[in-house]
């Protein structure tokens, strides 16, 4: 019974003299190898060289601060409920008096953890966020030997206050988003109209 059209009948024919001395086959193989020396390399020298990355590449997350350096995240939990991999957990806390420069709203995330091994980098958290707090960036998640080091807490996720430590996410903004930001109903996310009531 013929199972496939690609099957071949094995024959046990004797080799010719050219095949029996092997050298022509070896040299033709060597020529292929040699020809590759003069072709363009397909690999790059990774740590020194990097490939170009899209501006909207979805890599390691960042938790943004606002213009005066207060954390934007209010621990509303929408990223965690939107996350299909259930990678995000958070614990909320109430802002105390004198912490207004640290946290934008009355409530903030005291603990915010993303399990980078669970995360599938879909960007749903970014989309769900009503406060423009979480963004995926074009940075890659570093490799490590231990699983526990992949649970990123606020110490890794929150960007620094200093201007040089801020993470630029402006390139992720599409034309539609930029247009939406000029709308009136977006005002509550602007610094000038901070509603702390």
């Amino acid at each position: 019974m013929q199972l496939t059209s690609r099957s071949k009948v094995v024959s046990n024919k004797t080799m010719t003299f050219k095949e029996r001395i092997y050298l022509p086959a070896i040299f033709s193989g060597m020529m292929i190898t040699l020809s590759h020396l003069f072709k363009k390399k397909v690999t790059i020298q990774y740590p020194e060289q990097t490939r170009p990355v899209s501006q909207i590449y979805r890599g390691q997350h960042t938790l943004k601060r606002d213009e005066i350096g207060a954390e934007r995240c209010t621990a509303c939990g929408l990223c965690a409920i939107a996350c299909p991999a259930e990678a995000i957990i958070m614990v909320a806390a109430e802002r105390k008096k004198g912490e207004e420069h640290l946290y934008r709203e009355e409530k903030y995330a005291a603990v915010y953890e993303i399990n980078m091994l669970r995360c599938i980098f879909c960007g749903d958290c970014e989309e769900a966020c009503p406060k423009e707090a979480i963004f995926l960036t074009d940075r890659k998640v570093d490799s490590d030997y231990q699983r526990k080091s992949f649970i990123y807490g606020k110490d890794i996720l929150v960007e620094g206050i200093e201007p040089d430590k801020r993470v630029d996410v402006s390139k992720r903004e599409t034309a539609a988003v930029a247009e939406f930001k000029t709308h009136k109903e977006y005002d509550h996310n602007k610094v000038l109209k901070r509603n702390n009531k």
Partner: protein
Amino acid sequence: MAKVTIDGHSIEVPDGTTILQAARMIVDANNYEGANIAPPTMCYYSKLKTSGGYCRTCIVKVTKGSEKDPRPMPKPVASCRTTVMDGMEVVNITSPEVLESRKAVVEFLLINHPLDCPICDQAGECHLQDLGYEHGLAKTRYDFERRTFEKIDIGPYVKLHMTRCIMCFRCIKVADQITDNRFQGMLFRGDASEISTYIEKAIDNDFSGNVIDVCPVGALTDKTFRFKSRVWFAKPMDAHRYCKKCSGKVAIWLKADEVLRVTSRKDKWGEAEEWICNECRFEKKKTSDWIIEGPRHIDRHSVISANHYENLTKLKLDIGKQQKQLADKK
């Protein structure tokens, strides 16, 4: 008895029934899942006397006044305050005019309501959120500053956020009717009106905590639950304890073994089934205090139902039965 037709569904109801109650009776009688034809309510509460008539979300259109006087009513009426007449015909969701007016009502309710759902503990079980989602506009047309208030501390258990209040008077009716001393009331008038305990007196009645359950928005919230968790991350369970003051039948909201908060059990209209006392609500925060009956049914349209599975044994039995039927057919 009066025969009333709402959105094409007829029912015989006793005289003196309101259109809203009749609509709910139709839903109950037909066992509708969606419960669409019952108008939404923000201020009416069937368990509180004289509630209703403030918020106007339950407006419906009466297309035929009664058998004797078949003329339609000129304007949409508040269904919670309008009693039925024999032969009355009412349209609710089948009338574009009613839906349009309800949208306008929602817009008015949201004029001064702050957009702080991300920090509000009521988010996820807020009636105004649902109403805005179903009937409202996605954006505001209001240009002016929203109304703000000085914060008032009304006691160790209940947190008052006056900015979120929509003036439904439900909490005042609770203070009037459920507790024996009224310490709460409405101050000032019109746009400036606000809920307050009289001369900022702490509400220390045993049943004062029920104002949290009746509040349709996040104006009155549980201080012991403040910022503990979003409601959809907590697991609601039916539980009871033997309480001398109240029935002790409550819903507890768990996170692992910790009782995050205790609320009354809400029926499908979002109303408390039984009032519970402050001791049950605020002081019994251990699982050992409660006898847990089982997971609480949450409507699948609610965000709280995400990742909550109930009746797993029943589900397994059903699947087993189906598989057996299929096997028998072969």
